């Protein structure tokens, strides 16, 4: 499996955010998008998720499901948690599993309760999500990535609001996702716990530095 992006261009609000952006991510590889604020990291992730219009270029997932578009095979973890305060922790996760999950769930995907235990919310399954702290809300969103199998993970500053323990948990989950042959793209300002990921630096001079990890 390989995620190929060629010559991507994005215009938002009449301003060119980036143009001529190309990169390739192979199965089991992570790409970290770096750059100062406002340089287009989030726009790139939202573009790949199909949430921002692509003004040029192409995105292909080689070896993916040919009947599904790239956004339909991707998980997007943005700045917003997509949680309803009035629903309980389990109801929130359960809804997204039914909404986003495959029609026939694969046998190896964890159950909802297992996933919630993994992210450390096992003891507050029936608490309304409105009572969660920012970090707990983030962990509930992360549980979504684990429960539903989708090969591409698009993570926008995934460590925001997470304590050190949760950051380690996230790093482990990302490692497992890559080991299963997934593809990961993360926007970040600092290390997010991945071992020597490839880096894509957005800014005045766009350059692609391949890492020396598990490429």
């Amino acid at each position, binding site marked *: 499996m390989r995620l190929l992006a060629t010559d991507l261009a994005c215009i938002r609000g009449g301003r060119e955010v980036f143009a001529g952006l190309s990169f390739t991510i192979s199965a089991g590889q992570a790409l970290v998008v770096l750059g100062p604020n406002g340089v287009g990291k989030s726009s790139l992730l939202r573009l790949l*998720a199909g949430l921002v219009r692509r003004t040029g270029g192409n995105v292909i997932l080689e070896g993916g499901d040919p009947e599904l578009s790239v956004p339909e095979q991707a998980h997007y973890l943005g700045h917003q948690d997509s949680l*309803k305060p009035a*629903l309980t922790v389990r109801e929130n996760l*359960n809804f997204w599993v039914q*909404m*986003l999950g495959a029609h026939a769930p694969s046998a190896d995907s964890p159950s909802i309760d297992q996933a919630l235990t993994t992210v450390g919310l096992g003891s507050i399954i029936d608490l309304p999500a409105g009572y969660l702290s920012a970090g707990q809300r983030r962990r509930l969103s992360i549980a979504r990535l684990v429960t539903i199998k989708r090969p591409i993970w698009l993570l926008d500053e995934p460590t925001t609001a997470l304590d050190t323990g949760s950051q380690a948990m996230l790093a482990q989950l990302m490692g497992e996702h890559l080991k299963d042959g997934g593809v990961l793209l993360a926007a970040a300002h600092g290390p997010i716990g991945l071992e020597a990921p490839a880096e894509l630096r957005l800014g005045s001079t766009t350059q692609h530095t391949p890492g020396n990890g598990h490429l």
Partner: protein
Amino acid sequence: MNTLSALLVRDIRLAMRVGGGAVIGVLFFLIVVTLIPFAIGPDLGLLARIGPAILWLGALLASLLALDRLIAADYEDGSLDLLLMARMPIEIVVAVKAFAHWLTTGLPLVVATPVLGLLLNLDPQATAAVALTLLVGTPALTFIGLIGAALAVALRRGGLLLAVLVLPLTIPVLIFGVAAANAAITGPMSFGAPFSILCALTLMSLVIGPVAAGAALRQGME
């Protein structure tokens, strides 16, 4: 199917729990309809004559009340992003959301109509006629409103824009809804003709609403 029922159940559950849509809408309907006899005065004949129109106007305004949150709530907390990434066309997603919205805001208005008919001195037959036209007509109001709700999100404007966009489009529904109710009560027109047109308007809006709303949301992607 599983996906659609999950969305339907979630939206209904939210409407019930969040101190909700249904009760507030019915209360608003009650207040509007109660205010009018106070404004017009105790002329029972006049009230009975304009009763259907008052009930229809009240229902129209009440159904507009909650439309603002139909898509905006999902947009604000990021749920709309994920709904767009589901393996389900956004047109169907918004259609299911609108149906859930009608079940929690439109249907209670129909149920409350007989009670309000008493306030307006409508006889049982007239009340039944108004309730029937509302049952058929309120889905049209919701699905036309769906277009406005999607546009308001796509244009990043809320509140009043929705009312300004939606109310003119609901005029045909209002005309034929009231005409059908009046025909049943006073004649001399037959009930069938305006009622059939009302049904046709509802069926049209069931098709056009989700498609237009989906187009608006896709267009608004930025």
